[in-house]
């Protein structure tokens, strides 16, 4: 594994992506401290001002410094996305492995639950979850995480399924190795690249999904800025600042692009194939059939649909 990762890092696109993510990480941790102004300080005498020496990126509709808000928003946006992906990962990956190794009933049960979740429209689901748990970024991200879990489930299951018939797994079984031992030593390392690609892709998708939710007033806790929240509020003032939405949009795009580049690099260097993220994700979904057990690892993720961001903004 470490070998393939090293190969991936050597790619130029990966280096650039890591640099971008490094910056994002720095801003995420220290964004508030680096901000030149208080991101919440209002100056209603100078609203929607253009870039100036005092405000490099101008001010927003309440006269707050856009640069400071952008920096301050980084941590919140990134942590939100990480929460959603982590929840999806923790729910989906173990269930996916389990569905292969813990018998037919478990397999049937988790797949039906997964199917059920996938049939839900995500906006309605997010509205319901925040209705029950209260409205806030963690709750909205929890909703998205639960919603995305079936994708991890299917990716993991598909990847693991092909390994159950591998000779070395059968040999290990014959030698009396426990399931846990087999999963840890033979399965997990083979499944990991696929899961890593999915994780990177979903992380970028979640950033965009989170911004689309703010158009519905879900997941926002004003006045604390998030990239998605800034994007959504800036759109109301296009007449005054036509360029303003480009700023948070760029932050989202760069982060998402970097994550995708890393996902691509992992895919290229490990031979994992994955459907590119960004197609048909939250909307229509092609019929999902579990791949038959004897297909090769290379084909295993073909039935996985990664949540797409495009087209989602318009139904907010």
């Amino acid at each position: 594994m470490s070998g393939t990762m090293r190969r991936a890092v050597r790619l130029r696109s990966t280096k650039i992506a890591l640099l971008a993510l490094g910056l994002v990480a720095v801003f995420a941790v220290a964004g508030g401290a680096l901000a030149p102004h208080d991101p919440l300080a209002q100056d209603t005498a100078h609203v929607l001002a253009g870039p100036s020496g005092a405000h490099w990126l101008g001010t927003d509709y309440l006269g707050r410094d856009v640069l400071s808000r952008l920096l301050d928003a980084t941590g919140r946006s990134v942590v939100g996305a990480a929460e959603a992906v982590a929840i999806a990962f923790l729910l989906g990956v173990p269930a996916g492995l389990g569905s292969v190794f813990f018998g037919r009933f478990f397999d049937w049960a988790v797949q039906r639950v997964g199917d059920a979740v996938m049939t839900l429209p995500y906006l309605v689901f997010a509205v319901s979850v925040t209705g029950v748990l209260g409205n806030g970024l963690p709750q909205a991200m929890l909703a998205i995480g639960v919603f995305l879990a079936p994708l991890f489930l299917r990716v993991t299951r598909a990847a693991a399924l092909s390994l159950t018939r591998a000779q070395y797994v059968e040999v290990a079984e014959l030698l009396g190795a426990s399931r846990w031992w087999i999963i840890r030593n033979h399965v997990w390392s083979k499944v990991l690249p696929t899961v890593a690609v999915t994780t990177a892709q979903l992380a970028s998708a979640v950033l965009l999904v989170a911004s689309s939710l703010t158009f519905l007033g879900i997941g926002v806790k004003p006045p604390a800025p998030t990239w998605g929240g800034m994007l959504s509020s800036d759109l109301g003032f296009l007449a005054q600042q036509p360029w303003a939405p480009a700023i948070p949009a760029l932050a989202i795009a760069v982060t998402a692009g970097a994550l995708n580049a890393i996902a691509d690099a992992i895919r290229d260097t490990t031979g994992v194939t994955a459907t590119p993220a960004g197609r048909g994700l939250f909307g229509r979904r092609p019929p999902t059939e579990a791949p038959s057990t004897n297909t090769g690892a290379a084909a295993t993720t073909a039935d996985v649909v990664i949540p797409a961001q495009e087209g989602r903004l318009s139904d907010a």
Partner: protein
Amino acid sequence: MALGRRGFLGLGVLAGSSVLLAACGSGSDADSATGREGGTLRWGWSTVTSWDPVTSSAGWDVHALSLAYSALTKLDEKGNPVPALAESWKYNDKGDQITFVLRSGLTFSDGTPVTATAVRKSLERGRDFAGSLVKAQLVSVQTVTANDSARTVTLGLSTVDYQIPSLLAGKTGMIVSPAAFEKDAKGLATKPVGAGPFRLTEYVPNQLAKLVRFPGYWDKANIHLDAFELYPLPEAATAVAALQSGRLDVAQIPGSQVSAARSAGLEVQIIPSLVTTVLDVNVTKAPFDNPKVVEAFKYAIDRKALLDTVSFGIGAVNYQPFPPGYVGHNASLDNAFAFNPEKAKKLLAEAGHATGLEVPLTITGASTALAEQLQAQFAKVGVKLTIDTIPATQATQVMYIQHSKALAVDGFAGRDSAVQAFQVLFGEQGLMNPGRRTPPELNAALQKVRRTPLDDPSYPTVLQAATKIAVEQMPNIFLFTTPRVLARKKSVSPLGSYLAVQRFEGVRVS
């Protein structure tokens, strides 16, 4: 009954759907030559929850319904009732019976005549139909008697109430063809049959409504448009473009778009309206169970600053539910709770909150500017407002049915009759009175309003006295009035400045 909020929130929230509307309009440019009669007006406003005035659930619908229906009366530009389907009306001496005299020879758009019996059946349906949402306004109407030969309809009231002519100017008084609701009551939701200035020909819910001039309208001489098309409110970001591109002829735009519209060569009309931005306060929830806290909140707000950022200065700071120019507006309240942070702090200290206070402020939908600014203003008097956003889809349930929020940003769209407005804002069953409490003085003052004829010289004084009691004793925190900002293409003649319902008599498209 989610009246006022629809339009108020519409700007920010409902707008998304308008994106789906491709360029649907066309045609009016071709026949532009003479400009005297004819033409099509495309209005970007809002489509309706129902074309049946009795089951329509949004107060905002009254504007669109007024295209297809005529009521017994209508409100003039100042909001006073004037004749419509009824050419005159008269109260008995006691004031508990009113007789309307109908115009002669009118028909509904289905060809059936507008008789006294038809009016009776229509009003009785509003009062008795199980699904009626105007029922509450007609409870005092005990009997309706029709005399077809004399063309009179007489309403017997359980109590003296001189507000009936105002009340019947809105959805409550819109007359529906009995032939239509006796045959297919549900069908009315999509196929209105009234005697209004236009007749609906095509309707796609949430997308468009097309109407043509109805030649049987009583005031057809003042309707110069051949056709009318209604589209959902364009999103703030696209409103000006929709007018420039010719997709719309007239559209409501937010204050932020006014300068853009003007520089795009559009005419912008700022029409005073009854729409008021207000904070709903629940006096049964802490800390508002202490009147001193409510009073402190009223003083803690710099309304002018809110107006400047939220609606770009368009509108007027107001401490009462009625805008300047409306008969109920009490000029003595023009500085009722002028921004005074020191006084607010003092009141809070007296209420035992000298060390600070944390209060959740509920907002609906995605627009947070007002709440964020309130938060900053309250921070200066030691109150920490936390903003609690509820998705627009849950707003009606949470705010108007559960009444579970202590403090919420709301919008009041105004009502056809002043007493009706009081009921919505302050009544024990009022949508915007989450505490469900009304002081007896206010009820007495309202009773007096009902008992005073609208044309009585003392009516303004009596109504304004009730306004004063309400503003001083009720917790609702009024912030500012929001005019109707309509941008129109130069080819459209100026629109009437109607306080309540926007009307299109006299409007031409060249």
